[in-house]
């Protein structure tokens, strides 16, 4: 008996006091890394930046709808600006803070540790510094997205898990800080290499490309400020132009996606891989392009639908006379291949013999449910090319911004040249033909197109920003160009002017949300973000 008791207690004692290391080892994850190269976190933040901006999911990126490029088919809720059923603001917010900024911030932290500890055997201080600069530029871009969508958001206290109730910073102040981040980053660069080429899908680690992007981003942000703080806007824009912005589509801040899921273009996932038929081209956009005789329509939309002829008592089609501001009629050959496209304007009669052979780019009614089959579809490129590039900022946009900067007296030059260059860059990007004829039309030509420079530039920028819903939404709010329409049954355009704060933020960080709501003039979709002064 003594032996047994002895055995029990000695073994128990042994097990109890000898095993802390062993217990710790047991609680160590053997399937996931506890240390990683910061460049892998950067690559993730970059990929997620693109996925967020390119997403066509109605759960987090409804902006192609808000820009009225696309209409929905069976379930039109998001095009009616229903934001809460799918918690869209929450998802957009999370896509940026959690999926992008957290990884970038962590990468920056890890690199800073290397710098602080002076571990320069393999990577020089200079390259580390360049990497931090690169991260800062990408973070700046993402903070701009947050401010543009929400107004005041957490910035100075964000990304700190020890602070569960980060305060919301003033939107204008964040813009200032973000611009400083960009300036500091540009200043910090030296040499030519930042991240390894394989880890930087956008610019292959090229410092000069990142600097050009940083300047173009400054141009965009400066122009955002133009109505609220002309002096700052002027300085920022002038600096950016002097330092060098995008000069061709080759400079675009873009990545090429891949052929297989999950690395295809997110639009391809949403409209092809999903097997769903949720979207068609919107009537607002299709009619505008038809009217302007804009050949980009053939790239922006596909699958024109049958042109309907009236029928007589014997159900035979009869000649059809219609009045149009402008309409592309596509004549389809017997082999069903498109063989001719004509643009018709005014009162036109089409002979019945063409019944069944004529097609039109008819868009679905924006804000309503639509039949998928009886409306033209989205761009064939989006359908056919899973690798279609995603774009954060395009050369085309830069040219339009330059034109506007000239009009606003910030810089000098010929606005028309930049306006035309913006259109041309868009034609080139989408592979559209007929740019020369297009800009020669009086309703397009800069000198003769309707409206003031804001209207002209706004509308053409809107057309050029097709598929860049986030920026199109910001452009609409900033320039208030006259193209978007009210929802069916409404009198006024009711596109949200900002996202309300995620409901979840109210529950988790209520005091900060209340303070921010008070500061911005109410947590409403009609509250304007600080740069949207009218």
């Amino acid at each position: 008996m003594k032996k047994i008791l002895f055995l029990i207690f000695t073994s128990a004692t042994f097990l109890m006091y000898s095993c802390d290391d062993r217990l710790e080892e047991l609680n160590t994850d053997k399937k996931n890394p506890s240390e990683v190269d910061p460049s892998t976190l950067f690559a993730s933040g970059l990929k997620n930046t693109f996925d967020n901006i390119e997403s066509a999911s109605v759960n987090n990126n409804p902006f192609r709808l808000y820009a009225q490029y696309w209409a929905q088919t069976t379930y039109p809720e998001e095009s009616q600006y229903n934001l809460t059923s799918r918690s869209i603001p929450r998802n957009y917010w999370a896509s940026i803070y959690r999926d992008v900024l957290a990884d970038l911030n962590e990468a920056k932290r890890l690199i800073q540790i290397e710098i602080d500890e002076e571990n320069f055997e393999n990577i020089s201080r200079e390259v580390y510094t360049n990497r931090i600069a690169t991260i800062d530029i990408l973070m700046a871009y993402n903070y701009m997205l947050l401010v543009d969508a929400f107004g005041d958001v957490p910035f100075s206290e964000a990304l700190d898990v020890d602070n569960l109730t980060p305060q919301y910073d003033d939107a204008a102040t964040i813009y200032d800080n973000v611009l400083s981040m960009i300036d500091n980053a540009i200043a910090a660069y030296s040499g030519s290499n930042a991240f390894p080429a394989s880890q930087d899908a956008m610019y292959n680690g090229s410092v000069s490309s990142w600097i050009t992007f940083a300047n173009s981003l400054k141009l965009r942000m400066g122009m955002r400020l133009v109505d609220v703080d002309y002096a700052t806007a002027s300085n920022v824009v002038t600096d950016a132009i002097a330092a060098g912005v995008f000069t061709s589509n080759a400079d675009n801040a873009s990545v090429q996606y891949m052929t297989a899921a999950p690395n295809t273009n997110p639009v391809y996932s949403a409209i092809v891989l999903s097997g769903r038929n949720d979207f068609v081209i919107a009537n607002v956009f299709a009619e505008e392009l038809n009217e302007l005789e804009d050949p980009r329509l053939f790239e922006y939309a596909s699958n024109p639908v049958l042109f309907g002829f009236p029928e007589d008592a014997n159900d035979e089609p009869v000649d059809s006379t219609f009045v149009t501001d402008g309409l592309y009629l596509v004549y389809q050959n017997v082999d069903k291949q498109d063989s001719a496209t004509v643009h018709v304007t005014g009162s036109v009669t089409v002979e019945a013999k063409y019944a069944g052979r004529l097609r039109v780019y008819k868009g679905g009614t924006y804000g309503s449910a639509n039949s998928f089959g009886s409306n033209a579809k989205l761009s064939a490129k989006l359908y056919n090319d899973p690798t279609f590039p995603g774009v954060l900022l395009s050369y085309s946009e830069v040219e339009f911004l330059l034109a506007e900067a000239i009009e606003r007296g910030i810089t000098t030059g010929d606005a028309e040249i930049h306006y035309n260059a913006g259109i041309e860059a868009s034609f080139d990007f989408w592979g559209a033909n007929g740019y020369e004829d297009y800009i020669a039309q009086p309703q397009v030509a800069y000198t003769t197109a309707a409206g003031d420079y804001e209207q002209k530039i706004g509308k053409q920028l809107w057309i050029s920003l097709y598929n860049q819903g986030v920026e199109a939404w910001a452009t609409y709010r900033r320039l208030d160009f006259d193209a978007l329409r009210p929802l069916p049954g409404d009198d006024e355009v009711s596109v949200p002017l900002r996202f309300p704060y995620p409901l979840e933020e109210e529950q988790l960080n209520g005091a900060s949300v209340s303070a921010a709501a008070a500061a911005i003039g109410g947590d409403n979709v009609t509250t304007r973000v600080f740069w949207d002064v009218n």
Partner: protein
Amino acid sequence: MKKILLTCLMLVFVLHAWAQDRTVSGKVTDADTGEGLPGVNVLLKGTSSGVNTDLDGNYKISVPSDGGTLVFSFIGMANNEVQVGARSVIDVQMETDVQQLSEVVVTAMNITREKASLGYSQQTLDGESISKVKETNFINSLSGKVAGVNVRQNNTMGGSTNITIRGNSSFTNNQPLFVIDGVPVSNETNNSASQQAGGYGYDYGNPAADINPEDVKSMSVLKGAAATALYGVRGQNGVILIETKKGGSTKGIGISVSSGLTVGSIDRSTFAEYQDEYGAGYGAYYGSTGYFNDADVDGDGTADLVVPTTEDGSYGGAFDPNLNVYHWDAFVPESENFGQARPWVAGENTPAEFFENQITWNNNVSLTGGNENTSFRLSYSNVDENGIMPNSSLTKNTLNFTGSTKLNEKLTADVLFQYNRQDVVGRFSTGYSDNLMSQYRQWWQTNVDVKEQEAIYKETGKNYTWNAADATSDPLTPIYWDNPYWTRYENYNSDVRDRILSKVGVNYKVTDWLNFSGRASIDTYFETREERRAVGSVPTAFGVQRNSESSGYQQTDIQNTEYNFNGVLSGSKDISSDLSLSGLLGFNMRKERYDYSQQSTSGGLAVAGLYALSNSVSPNPFPFEYLHEREVYGYFGNLNLGFRNFLYFDANYRMDVSSALPVANNQFDYYAFGLGFVFSEIIDLPGINFGKLRASYGTVGNDTRALRVNDVYYRTNNFQGGILTTLPSVKNNPNLKAEITTEYEIGLELTALNRRLNFDIAYYNRETGNQLLSVQLSKATGYTSTFINSGAIQNKGFEIVLGGDIIKTNDVRFNSTANFTANRSEVLSLIGDTENYVFASYQSGVTSNAAVGEPFGVLKGTGYQFIDGERVINASGYPVAVTNQIIGDPNPDWTLGVNNTLSYKSLSLGFLVDVQKGGDVYSLDMHYGRGTGLYPETAGLNDKGNPVRSPVADGGGYLYTGVTEDGEPNTTYARADYYGGAFYWGNSARQPNEMTVYDASSVRLREASLTYSLPKSAISKFAQSVNLSLVGRNLWIIHKNVPYADPESGLGAGAAQGFLVGSYPTVRTTGVKVDITF
């Protein structure tokens, strides 16, 4: 034969006869019937020497030369103690015992104690209560039978059952611990987080369902902290101790055979009813007529009417038998309706006809045998079930062996070996996903005849769906929904679980008052799950990455092992004639390993019909894998003092060291005290046979799963040659501590009226602090959630058991026992000044919450706006919605189970009535199904006698009662002529979620059985006993308020309750059962 069996099992028994002084024999009979009682435990008092009576009630036991005392005990009978004296034959009559005066019950660590001595509440169930009317998952059979225990099943074949004891104590795991003969049984529900929150997935059941009811002799339910403190870190949610049937000392081999067949069909009150006035569509959106697409189908040059097959709703054109239109099958070349227009009428067979009869075979054979030194029991069970869904089957095979032998005078050894194999094909998809119930309850066209879908699938084997994206040109490409038969027969899943549960124990009698027992056990299973998606299916989230895939294959492997090593030194001594002392010291080491790996194809299947990981179009994505390991060391002790059979004191202590917690916090302890005062021993109260007051206080706890302490990074898919890693969305916490539940409990037990009435009431108050929360974080922190210790939940309530023999004559006996439970939970605090914590978010924006000051698990979503208690109706006639409101509380006010047994001679009728009062459920099915116009209330006439779906201008529309925003009575009819009108599923401004919150109260006849024992005279030639039973379960829902669904049909096991989505109808089963003992 016995030898062969033993050899087969590779067990070596040392059969060692030992010298005895002399032998006493006799027969034990039932005082009521005079028949021999088999299986009575005959124990020589003060020793561990004992035998069981044989099938005729005979026994033979060796006693010391000076005689001593024999204790006869049998469940349900009063113990008899008999002085042997000089006698060599002792016959004993045992009285039925409905009171617990000297009932011996199993308590923590399998210590048997007299129930009278306990300071806490404990309830025992005999095996028959779960084996008589058998459920494939035995946990379902506990419903209504134990006070304080709440059971929610989910109606899917092989699905998990949520069982909680005394409410929810934790935000993560509230399932009690199951222990079979001292072996803890893993009951981790390996369902995905998505499945548990009402998203996609299958319910793979809870592993405790592997316990075979036929092997269960009795179950002891330990509810409170004082009862379970010895389980420490595992005792927080209560413990269910299961004692298996054992062999006894018998002549020859005893054979029992039990065979049952039950047939089930759906309870139609728990399934959708459909309106039969309008068909496919969402409104007047299509073609020239508004309700049909125009296409020249017959080639005559004029447009024909084609059903809008893309629309998965029934808000379309009014049915008209004189209108011929082209349905989905008009475009299917193999269909007899190919090219034919047919009348526009409701489908003849609604989805209610989709369900098949559930057929369950349940067979068991067991062999028992033994002699004075060795006993064994071997049983084999087979359960074979075909579920209500086409192509669904579940097979369980269980082999169970228990044996024990006396190795010498002091040493006994016992062994338990159980092997299970479960094969399941075609589990039911759950939640808001490609679950067919969400198709039938939310997204359906009433013009579709489900049997025609079956006919075309069976004829062609192709996915001809009612929901083609473009029926006229391509009837084989669905837009949202596959042909439901295609879903069942082609996109099916399957899983196999092999499990071994084994224990070896030794018991060494150190002295006549001191005992050592050691035990080693293993519970291990290997489970493989396969999910298939056939080429040609509608794309849906599938595979490891949940990308949209139109075909694919996914395989999940789970390997789970738990070892336990136990050593307990126990002693018992009477200090004086007044004072008895007993206690124990023990050690437990638990070692767990949970290895999970999930792999899938990506981009589809290269070769149709081949379900292999290598058959992937794109490179296989990274597998999803995790490995959780944990060791817990427990040291415990217990001390009991008994004073003159009326005052009992009980103290328990346990210390645990868990590897799942940070080293600095990994050691923690628990303690409990109990006091039992049998006042009837000292005060003589008229009519009271037994009375006891009890009080106890205890603490128990809960650690966490492994890997929640240290941070890691996750790999994500490579992109453009780059390597990607990301921070997890969940932040781990290096400062975690164990949860602590403290609980006090007081109770009163009474036995009265000649022991015909039993009464037991318990009041408990438990508070769990240091609550381990997975808290949602502001995502501005960069994370979704983290784990912290904070917050407290309180559960308090009453449990009442009242029962007894209402009628008791020689021939007729009517026994009724009621179990009543009323639990109130309240979330006392959360982290810091946080007022609300969301622990599950569902489709449509409804959430499950812990809100300070509210019951655990309240549902939040959009609620009504009120002016002076009246609902506000907006200018269009729609109810106004207000966001972020509490819209329901899923916790019942009280539950009541009334168990009745009426017997007349050999005929016995048993039935169980279950009542739940209160508790709310939110129905996503109604939320969408009303919007899509499926249900009768969305059609028909309005209060003006006009079709509700007519335009308001024509007298149609629906009038919501309430007031306008100015407080005036609402007189505006809401339009109901399209889906977005009066029955629309709502948005942040109107038609709040609260519209489809229902009271979950119900009254139901849960089970009934009629048993006839054949007279001994008729069967004595071939058998000892033959029982024939008619059994039924879920026979009748007498009352409920939830339309078209069973309020109990939840999501399965998990903290998130009160959400109905794609719920399965309840299966009403009836059957026959034969039990024969040879």
